């Protein structure tokens, strides 16, 4: 029996599930978990003779662009990117994200984060934007962000083929309803509870009567993860792959 899935492996598997059906997934710089998920999806689909393309920004190996940094954004506008990941120093219940700063009056905020990067654009154009933040706390998940880097929803007259579809945290998985502009809790990660999530979340969200536990990987998936995927990830994210190997050293042979 292999070691059970670690929390990070669970996140990778949960994201891979959200990516099902995507042909081209783009991953930002310094995003090892989303990158691992995309690589898992690619490995899984290859077994069904389907091709998944992955662009990892900042990677030499997984960079299929030849037109400079703007190509990712052009590609998104052309409808050639199916999924992208966004995080935030703050995320609120309407799906707004804040990558700029909080507390006090902008621009002299108490906390300053790097800046909006491409979020103010990609959140509009990529069909499947997955919000991902491991830290699940009331300081991250607030009622209303202090600065909108990218809005969760837009009025109907605004051109917006894309937007957030889900929020994954270290505690659970939410879906996002773009019409209603609200999150619904879809599953709770093993070892956590709905109550814990409610307490750690600064915004209101919908809770169905039954909230299942986030399913972990089956044995075949786990084998792929700790074999080929971890190998591929190490090309882009050496330290991440090394830490992962330290946590669960064994490689399981796929059935």
């Amino acid at each position: 029996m292999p070691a059970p899935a670690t929390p990070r492996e669970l996140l990778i598997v949960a994201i891979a599930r959200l990516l099902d059906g995507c042909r081209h997934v783009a991953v930002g710089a310094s995003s090892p978990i989303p990158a691992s998920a995309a690589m898992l999806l690619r490995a899984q689909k290859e077994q069904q003779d389907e091709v998944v393309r992955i662009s990892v920004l900042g990677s030499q190996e997984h960079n299929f662009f030849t037109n400079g940094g703007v190509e990712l954004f052009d590609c998104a506008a052309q409808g050639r990117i199916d999924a992208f990941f966004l995080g935030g120093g703050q995320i609120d219940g309407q799906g707004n994200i804040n990558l700029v700063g909080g507390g006090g009056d902008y621009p002299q905020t108490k906390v300053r984060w790097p800046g909006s990067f491409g979020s103010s654009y990609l959140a509009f154009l990529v069909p499947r934007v997955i919000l991902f933040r491991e830290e699940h706390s009331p300081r991250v998940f607030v009622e209303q962000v202090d600065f909108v880097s990218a809005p969760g929803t837009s009025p109907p007259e605004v051109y917006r083929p894309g937007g957030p579809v889900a929020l994954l945290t270290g505690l659970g998985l939410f879906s996002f309803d773009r019409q209603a502009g609200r999150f619904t809790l879809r599953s709770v990660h093993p070892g956590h509870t709905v109550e814990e999530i409610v307490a750690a979340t600064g915004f209101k969200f919908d809770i169905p009567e039954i909230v299942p536990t986030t399913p972990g990987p089956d044995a075949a998936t786990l084998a792929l993860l700790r074999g080929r995927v971890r190998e591929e990830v190490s090309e882009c994210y050496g330290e991440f792959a090394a830490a992962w190997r330290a946590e669960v050293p064994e490689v399981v042979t796929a059935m």
Partner: protein
Amino acid sequence: MTRTVALDDLVRRIKPGAKVAVAPDYAGPPMATIRELIRQGTGDLHVVCVPSAGMVVDVLLGTGQVRTLETAAITLGEAGGAPRFQAALKQGSIRIMDATCPAIHAGLLAAQKGVPFVPLRGIIGTDVLANRPDWKVIQNPFADAEDPIVLIPAILPDIAIFHAPVADRFGNVQIGRRRELASMAYAAKSTLVTVERITDENLLHSELSAAAVLPSLYVDAVAVVPEGAKPYGMWSGEYDVDPAEVAQYARVARTEDGFRDYLARFLGATVPA
């Protein structure tokens, strides 16, 4: 006409008050040029990050030589937040023009095309837009239904700076697929490039090597500065980023004193000839 000059002569072409476009960490950040800019004390700069920056701009911010900062982000990556950027904003000592990556590319594109603006999707409803009175929203003239769209005005840098692996004797510069470097140069009045080395081969001579070249037409001066991007790496493989150095900077520059100490060492550092 491109001139090959010494680094200090190259940097003297940047005048106080200039609008300076700076290459990002992944495309030859002009660390040597920034170091010399700090030495010369050229101030009152309007820095445009294409479209983001790290230590290159954070160090410059720490010296107080930046009046205005136009960027999609300033970050030290894995090493964490950019300390002098954060301090400058907290003190209100700079004017910040928060942008989003494609908007900076769009502004440079407008300059490249010689048009006053280009339209860009997205952005509507963000506080980025709310804080950019220089951006405009119009009704798309081609749409029958309501269809607001943002117009980004041209960004017209006086100077573009980056570090590249190779230039030839004619001033043609190898940029590989880092085409943001070409965009910066097209948009700027003047482009100043540091390189690892000069080659005798004409880089435009072969059709295939030409594809990787920014022609000398856009390059005003070249200075040879080996390791001119360090502690960042060069995409062309000469050297990798030194994460320990960036992390050390991130740590010590949190305080004004720590930054001053670092800066003294940074400015004192001599570059291998």
